[in-house]
Each structure stands twice: as C-alpha cells, then as structure tokens.
C-alpha cells in the first residue's frame, strides 16, 4: 500500500487543525492515566481512570471508530468504573490521603525505569518502521459494517466471548457469595 506511506513534516503537523484537537484530547488522557497510577486517594485514582478512558473514547471518535468509542463509554465508564467503586467500598479501603496505596520509593523507581524502557523501545520500533506516516483523514466506520462482520466472519469468536462473559458472571456470583448463607437450613446449599 504505497499510497498510505506518505509522511508529514513536523512543521506541517502543527498546521493541521485535527492535530490540535488530538492534543486537546491526548494531554488530559495521559494526565488522567498518570494520576490513576500516582494519586494517593483511592477514589480519586479510580475517577481519574474515567478521564483516561474518556480520552481514549474521544480518540476513537476522531479516528472515525464511533461505535468503539461509544462502547468504551458504555462498558468502561458506565459499568467497569462502578464495579471498581463498589470494590473499593466493599473492601473498606483506607480512604484518607495518608493511606499507603503504593509501594516504597525504590520499588517506584525501578518500576518507572522498567516502564520507561518499555515505552522507549515501543516508540523506537514504531518510529523506525512508520516514521511520520499519514493516517487517511476522518472517514467514519459504519456500525452496520461492524455488525455484518461480527455476525458473519467473526461469529464463532463472538459466541466464545459471550460464553466467557456468562461464565465470568456466574463465577463472580459463586466467588462473591457468602458461604454461610443457607448453611443452617437443609437443602439450602446451591
């Protein structure tokens, strides 16, 4: 696909309005992700995760993948965050700012080194292979196309994922159920 491989100069990059929109989305996304892993307040950390995930959803929108973006909003921001908050409340996590939520300084330093090396290697490999190659401009993906592919070519993976989801929900109920319910009455088990 040689037509896709044309690249952009850095000065031209800043001239494109879509890139300013991208920056407006990308900076809060990365900031939210950073606060998610560094905040000392557990509820705030989870709420900053909302910022990061909403940023990725907006990024899917400017890439033209509207259905994926809306699915992220529904599933992650709507459901998964609620699960996290419920998990925090049930485990009675320490809510104060002084709570010990992270490991000590040397663990943080080595983790920062490790993740920075990983980041640098990924960026080096991608920059080496693709440089500043252009993405074709905004061209929304039709949801009907995704649906047709999902129920045709990807039907078996789709069914497997739905089975996994069902098994996970049943497993979640079984794991989280209190064992002492119905222990006194005969036949109450199960």
């Amino acid at each position, binding site marked *: *696909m040689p037509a*896709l491989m044309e*690249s952009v100069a850095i000065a031209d*990059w800043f001239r494109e309005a879509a890139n300013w929109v991208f920056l407006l989305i*990308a900076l809060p996304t*990365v900031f939210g*992700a950073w606060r*998610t*892993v560094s905040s000392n307040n*557990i509820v705030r950390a*989870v709420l900053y995760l909302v910022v*990061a*995930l909403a940023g*990725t959803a907006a*990024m*899917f929108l400017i*890439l*033209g*993948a509207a259905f*994926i973006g809306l*699915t*992220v909003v529904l*599933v*992650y921001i709507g459901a*998964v965050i609620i699960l*996290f908050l419920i*998990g925090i409340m049930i*485990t009675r996590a320490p809510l104060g700012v002084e709570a*010990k*939520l*992270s*490991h000590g300084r040397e663990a943080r330093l080595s*983790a*920062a080194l*490790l*993740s920075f090396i*990983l*980041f640098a290697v*990924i*960026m080096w490999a991608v920059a080496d292979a*693709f440089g*500043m*190659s252009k*993405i074709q*401009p905004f061209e929304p993906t039709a949801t009907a*196309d*995704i649906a047709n592919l*999902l129920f045709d070519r*990807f039907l078996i993976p789709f069914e497997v*994922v*739905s089975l*996994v*989801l069902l*098994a*996970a*929900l049943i497993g*979640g*109920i079984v*794991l*989280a159920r209190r064992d002492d319910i119905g222990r006194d009455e005969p036949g109450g088990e199960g």
Partner: protein
Amino acid sequence: MTIIQFILVGSALFALGIYGVITRRNAVLVLASVELMLAGVNVNLVAFNVYLQDPILSGQIFVLFIIGLAAAEVAIGIAIILMIFRNRQSADVADLNLMKG
C-alpha cells in the same frame, strides 16, 4: 494526522499501566492499572486499523472482544479481591505472602 501520535498515547497508557501494576499495593488499583494497559492496546489496535484501511475491520472488532473480556476480567477480579478480603481482612497485595518461604 499521523500514525505515531496515536501509538505515542497508546504506549504511554500501556507503560503507565505497567508502572501502576508494579507499584500499587491496593488490589483494586492493580486491576485499574490493568484496565489502563488494555486501553492503551485498544488505542493502538484502532489506530492501526484505520491506518491500514482494513476491509474486514479486524482491529476494531478485536477491540470489541477486548472490551468484553476486560469486563469479564474485572467482574472475576473484584469477586476474587472480595474473597481475599473476607479471608484476610485486607485488600493489600503486600499482605498476600502465604507462598513466601
């Protein structure tokens, strides 16, 4: 728009997620960091899907599968954390040292 700006954000999310998985002590926050890593992978997949103009949209459909599996993973993860909390009165991963010799 270029491909590398999206990969930059995606790999930044992934690296921050790894940082969180290693440094966080609270098990719920470890799960949240895993979600961050998955979000980074999703950005990467959708960006390359658009870049390659894939006719069968495999990147976007793969992202849908990842979202479904992530929901399952969080449900199971929270249930396991809940069980650990019931048995040991703590959701701190540093306290789970039963296998330490």
